[in-house]
């Protein structure tokens, strides 16, 4: 039991990293990774939203959609629920923790329609996870996103300081750097499953 959870956590952080292996959530990955503090803020906000979204969509899938045989409405219902959740979270944060709201403020609305958040909730259902497992998986995916953001913001600050040939300046070199990072993460393939074997 415990072993399964650890495997889920590690594999969603390293092996199946949503940004670098599954290519979900590329928009904030390229958009908000220019500075370390912004990247960290976005990463933490995404992690929080993924956890809450998974906690709500799992019961909806198993207690509402499955009994009514409405699995085909999954995408629409999940998008609806996530968008409303993020709004609620924002209102509550503004009331109870203004400093946290200020820190995450700009990024929260951006996450409303982030495909990585939708991706993790749907993947939890596809993988037949229990509630606990899907929460651990959401945490892992969020941490993996945070890791990718932080690593890449470091890479980008180095890119900014280097002398890059004119045709590659800006987005092209950023995409090339992202592909290298993605290649590096491929090295984790097969490690996690075999650690506990």
């Amino acid at each position, binding site marked *: 039991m415990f072993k399964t959870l650890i495997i889920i956590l590690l594999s969603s952080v390293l092996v199946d990293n949503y940004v670098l292996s599954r290519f979900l959530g590329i928009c904030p990955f390229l958009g908000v990774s220019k500075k370390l503090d912004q990247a960290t803020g976005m990463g933490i906000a995404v992690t929080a939203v993924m956890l809450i979204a998974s906690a709500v969509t799992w019961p909806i899938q198993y207690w*509402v959609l499955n009994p009514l045989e409405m699995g085909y*409405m999954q995408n*629409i*219902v999940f998008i*609806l629920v996530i968008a*409303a959740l993020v*709004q*609620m979270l924002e*209102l*509550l944060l503004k009331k109870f923790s203004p400093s946290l709201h200020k820190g995450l403020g700009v990024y929260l609305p951006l996450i409303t329609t982030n495909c990585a958040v939708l991706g993790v909730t749907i993947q939890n259902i596809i993988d037949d996870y229990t509630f606990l497992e899907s929460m651990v998986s959401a945490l892992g995916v969020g941490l993996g996103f945070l890791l990718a953001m932080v690593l890449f913001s470091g890479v980008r600050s180095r890119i900014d300081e280097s002398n890059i040939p004119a045709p590659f300046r800006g987005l092209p070199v950023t995409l090339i750097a992202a592909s290298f990072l993605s290649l590096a993460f491929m090295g984790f393939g097969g490690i996690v499953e075999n650690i506990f074997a």
Partner: protein
Amino acid sequence: MDVLIAFLVVGAIALVLGILLALICHFFATPDDATQVKIRACLPGINCGACGYKGCDDYAAALAQGGVKPNLCIPGAQAVADEIGAILGVEAEPFEDKVAFVACNGHCEATRKKADYEGVPNCKGAAMLYGGPGTCTYGCLGLGDCANACPAEAICMIDGIARVDTSRCLGCGLCATICPKKIIQMVPQETAVVVMCSSKDKGADARKACQNACIGCKKCEKTCPHGAITVVDNLAVIDYSKCTGCGACADCCPTGCLKKVVFPNLPEGVDAEDLINTQFEVPHGEE
């Protein structure tokens, strides 16, 4: 039938979420700070950013939080500072009016061109190409980026260099930010003497490039009775906190780059209003 169920279920979920959102909004909403709203109403609302905040809203929020000076709104000047002071119940400090000043006097007759520039018609583009087409690499390029940035149409190009009509200048500092040569300074409105040069070349080189250049001879530094002038990197710099405006430096300056001024500092006989209405030929985009 299936369609109806799907319709009802999704509708019900949306309704529940909607009601939840409305309830949260109703019970946990943070009321907008009353002081902040009042302060925001006083501010001019042009979001120039001269106060150092992201816009009027941001500045109002910072003021309502406290610990911020009420006299930072430059377009609003003293009147707005007083109003905000009244709302917050503090005495507003006297407002220091600042105006933009172009530290260059390299007009057509004083300096020459080393090349003809036919690239992108703005200063930023020209500055990228070997520091611009002029013989002096520090001076005004005269392509009017500052004039285009100015929200008050206070800058015009006369004889190839930018001049500020200080009667129109809001003091927002946008021109100073956009100038690629960084030769526009924000100086106090009461300024009596200015250094109309930004060249850091050595005397002989500066003079060769422009007749009106500061040659760093240090005569002003020795003459100034109040010790307000120092020559840094071959360029005279005035400390306005010490300057009394006696003008001794302007009288002794061999190249005339130190000038006594009474703002507005347009050349004599040029009326700013006329200039903007009739001769104002700054390249305002392609219109």
